[in-house]
């Protein structure tokens, strides 16, 4: 049994009148990739955003290492739980290296500027972007920007990484670069929560698959269980739809 990194208990979230998450209970295991799939509008992004408190929850509790979210200062929490977005969101006025350095130079007082630069280069190397350290975001392709965004999140040395459809805005021929980077990260033992529509990738890297629909978890289990032998009709219908 691997250790539980995050525990999500009966989480409810609504925007105005509409209830988007309706009692989510699950757990995220350490050093595993948890993949969330489901039709669009089912609440996947909202759940992910609750996991680094970009959204506040109306009911329920989330734990990180047995510590309730409410007991962790919000900025501290976000350095421990990094996030990568569909739309890359690199800071357009900063070079790649400065994108990486901005947050840690403001927040990580334990490291010197030189040490941070060194970490920056090694992470850029890891995502295959070392040569572009001095480039500006708009000079990069979408796939390159997304790999920089991953490196930027890793600069904070997070314990968990959240990925929200990070390949959905990419040209098809760029998708693989980013997926490879994520596979490497999974192999290196990073705890990851991934929302994706790439079913092949989900099956390959996912240690656990969660299928969500209409704000609830319909089914969860190993890739074999969910993809190969789904129990719920809604899961079967969804998979039939996306796999055809």
């Amino acid at each position: 049994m691997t250790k539980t990194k995050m525990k999500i208990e009966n989480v409810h979230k609504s925007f105005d009148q509409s209830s988007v998450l309706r009692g989510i209970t699950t757990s995220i295991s350490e050093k595993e990739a948890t993949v969330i799939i489901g039709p669009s509008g089912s609440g996947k992004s909202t759940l992910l955003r609750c996991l680094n408190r970009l959204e506040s929850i109306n009911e329920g509790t989330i734990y990180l290492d047995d510590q309730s979210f409410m007991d962790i200062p919000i900025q501290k929490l976000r350095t421990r739980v990094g996030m990568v977005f569909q739309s890359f969101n690199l800071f357009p006025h900063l070079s790649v290296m400065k994108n990486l350095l901005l947050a840690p130079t403001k927040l990580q007082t334990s490291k010197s500027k030189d040490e941070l630069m060194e970490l920056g280069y090694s992470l850029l190397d890891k995502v295959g972007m070392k040569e572009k350290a001095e480039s500006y975001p708009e000079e990069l392709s979408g796939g390159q920007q997304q790999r920089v965004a991953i490196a930027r999140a890793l600069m904070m040395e997070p314990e968990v990484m959240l990925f929200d459809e990070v390949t959905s805005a990419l040209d098809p021929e760029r998708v693989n670069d980013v997926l490879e980077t994520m596979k490497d990260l999974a192999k290196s033992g990073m705890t990851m929560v991934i929302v994706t529509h790439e079913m092949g990738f989900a099956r390959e890297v996912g240690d656990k698959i969660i299928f969500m629909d209409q704000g609830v978890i319909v089914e969860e289990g190993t890739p074999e269980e969910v993809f190969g032998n789904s129990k719920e009709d809604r899961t079967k219908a969804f998979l039939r739809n996306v796999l055809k």
Partner: protein
Amino acid sequence: MKFDIAFIIDQLPYLMTGLKMTLLLSFASLVLSLLIGIAGAVIRILKVPILSPIIIGYVELIRNTPLLVQIFFLYFGLPFIGLKLSGTVTGIVALSLWGGAYAIENFRGGFKSVSKNLNEAGYSLGLNTYHVYRHIIIPIGFRVSFPSFSNTAMSVVKNSSLLAGIGVLELTFTALNSVAVSFKYIEMFLSLGVIYLLIVWVLSFLFALIERKLDFKRRSSKKAFFSFKGMANKTYGKAG
């Protein structure tokens, strides 16, 4: 009637003393307008309690009353509450408050155009609101607002001539002094117009240079000076 060039040349040194004052007033007021504009815009966007409604009222008041009335009010009104300021200081205060009000609207538009996605990227890295404004929203929004702020700045410079109304020895007032004894209106006001035109031209040239420098889209790749790529696109941080 003949156009008396010699008169103008004769009066130039005197006009230059006025010009110096105009430039001083303009420079001080522009710096203050810039600061008021950035601070006011952030307060408005963050909806800071108490301060935000004050800013709204201030901007309304300034934008909906004539600047000359504001100048008179400060110059003749403030002494009644025990605040006696010199014409020059009154002038700087009046122009800064006026320019600041317009600058708040300029910057508010620019800061708001910075995509919410970029703020969230900042917050997701653990940055706080101060960091996000200081390092993300203000630097990006400033570039977006800069063309409209330049227009405000140009108006501040031109409107400094209204300070002649309270006897500040700036360019327009020196011209008035000069015609009061010479009666050479055409020569003087034509020259005055030309001098203002030159100031505004120089200023707009400087602003264009700054705008070019600020454009991060051309910074790294050392594109040619006269390349216009990316000049039109003023919203940043969208996907793709």
